[in-house]
């Protein structure tokens, strides 16, 4: 086997980035002329293993065990390490979600393997993995070269297009046993308070509409208008730190260096000046639209399209326009 991809699932549902990584890994495996395997861990997750085949895996190692019902890094790491030792992949890839990042780091450290965290691109150089990652908060890029094997990387959501599922694809599901962690089960999940259903996650969003301090004259109305536009476009709502610090909107919406890093197809910044720390979180969006009263606002220097105007007028006009078009 050449490449092993860890597929992250929560309550039996795969994180979309898992398939993005698997899709890219398929391409790399083809270039290497090797096989692609996926690892699916959890309890009652057989359906996810089948899905992994439809998204490109040749083999899926399915570890379905009650001890893996809730993610805990120790037992997950012990199990993934055992799979790596048994099958010796050259490359092991993880989605760079909170759990995927922990798991990849623990596994790589235990195996004394090189790990490139939070990569934005993967390539092969002379048949070896070379992983591109933003550093210095997105102001520089570096290509990580690995010493020894396996080469490991965690990959940012939306770095690669989601592959199309091919239900006709065939592959092998191999059941493997869960491995108890050497140090025992040191961690116990006591509770989980889920985010409201139906909320689009910022890191997976294709479209994000964000608001900043520009909503100050009526923050509640401002973010209501921004949410209406986001909802109309099927997107997520973001914010600048100034808006979060002023208490207009909770921190989980913050985009930027001390918030989330996002990479949507479309980012609409409303009343956001474009401070460097904000750009660190959204600068690699495909298309950026800026709506700002001030024609000199720095956000216009990274935007593809700009509207100089009052967001309280422009945003509802956009919502009305898209409602018309999208029906």
């Amino acid at each position, binding site marked *: 086997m050449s490449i092993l991809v860890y597929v992250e699932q929560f309550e039996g549902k795969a994180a979309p980035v898992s398939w993005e990584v698997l899709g890219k890994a398929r391409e790399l495996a083809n270039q290497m002329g090797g096989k692609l395997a996926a690892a699916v861990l959890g309890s009652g997750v057989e359906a996810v293993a089948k899905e992994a085949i439809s998204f490109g895996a040749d083999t899926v190692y399915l570890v379905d065990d009650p001890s893996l019902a809730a993610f805990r890094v120790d037992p997950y790491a012990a199990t993934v390490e055992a799979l790596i030792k048994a099958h010796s992949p050259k490359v092991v890839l993880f989605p760079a979600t909170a759990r995927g990042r922990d798991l990849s780091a623990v596994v790589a*450290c235990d195996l004394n393997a090189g790990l490139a965290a939070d990569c934005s691109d993967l390539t092969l150089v002379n048949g070896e993995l070379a992983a591109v990652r933003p550093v210095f908060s997105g102001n*520089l*890029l*570096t*290509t990580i070269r*690995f010493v020894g094997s396996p080469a490991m990387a965690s990959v940012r959501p939306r770095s690669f297009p989601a592959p199309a599922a091919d239900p006709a694809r065939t592959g092998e599901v191999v059941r493997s046993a869960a491995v108890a962690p050497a140090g025992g089960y040191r961690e116990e999940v006591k509770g989980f308070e889920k985010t409201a259903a139906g909320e689009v996650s910022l890191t997976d969003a294709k*479209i994000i509409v964000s608001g900043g301090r520009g909503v100050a004259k009526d923050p509640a109305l401002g973010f209501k208008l921004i949410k209406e536009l986001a909802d109309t476009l099927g997107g997520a709502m973001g914010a600048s730190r100034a808006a979060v610090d002023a208490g207009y909107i909770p921190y989980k919406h913050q985009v930027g260096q001390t918030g989330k890093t996002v990479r949507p197809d479309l980012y609409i910044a409303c009343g956001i000046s474009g401070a460097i720390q904000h750009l660190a979180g959204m600068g690699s969006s495909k298309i950026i639209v800026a709506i700002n009263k001030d024609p000199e606002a720095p956000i216009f*220097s990274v935007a593809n399209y700009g509207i100089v105007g009052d967001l309280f007028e422009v945003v509802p006009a956009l919502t009305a*326009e898209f409602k018309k078009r999208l029906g």
Partner: protein
Amino acid sequence: MNFVVCVKQTPDTAELPKISAAEAVSGDIKATLVLNPWDEFAVEEALLLQDRFGGDVTVMTVGPQRATEALKDAIARGVQKAVLLDDPAFAGSDAWGTAAILAAAIRKNGPVDVVLTGKMSVDGNSGLVAPGLARKLGATLLTQVVKIVDISGGRITVERQLEEGRETVTATLPAVVSVSKEINEPRYPSFMGIRKAAKAVIPTWKLSDLGLSPSEVGAAAAKAQWTDVRKPPARASQVVMIKEATVEATAAKLADLLMAEKVI
């Protein structure tokens, strides 16, 4: 109870765009250097835990002599003890090397209950030191921590913010905890603290003090090497400003353009 905070000295975020690839590679950064912003939360949390549970707080960094300024920043906020970890052999360590150095130093420092780190460094951006440290210390790993609920009976209970929601988890001590921004509001260095920091004598521990082998640390041990450090490609396009006679017409024009771009 004993707490250790691991901090890094990093460039001021406002000056990050000015840093060249050559500076990043050599480590000879001309920008203003500060306490990594994420580590302010770790320092604050250590001080809050000391208020709640008593005990000692030690701050440590792996870095050159100039990194004592980051330790002094922590002292100015109220931390009592600091150690600089510096040796020519440490240069070029990757996350696992840095974690090995910190783990050895933490062991030398004495028994520890909780090690605190920031979520990530604004230069390395990897968030790997905390997991590495947990493994090298044989401690439990708790990342994305937004609240430390309790520490008692050899266990720590925390809340973690994950993509799907907020998890409450208990784990055995010792634990390595990497904290998120929501956990607290960092205090500023106090006037008295700054005076204390100015006078503080900070010990430097070297490779030989830590009983590490040179093969465990430094560039030669690094499994992940930075190559081809470069500026990302500039955003291709010049901004197109849209201004029609009415706001409705402007909205319609933008909608046309975005639909032509196929992003909607």
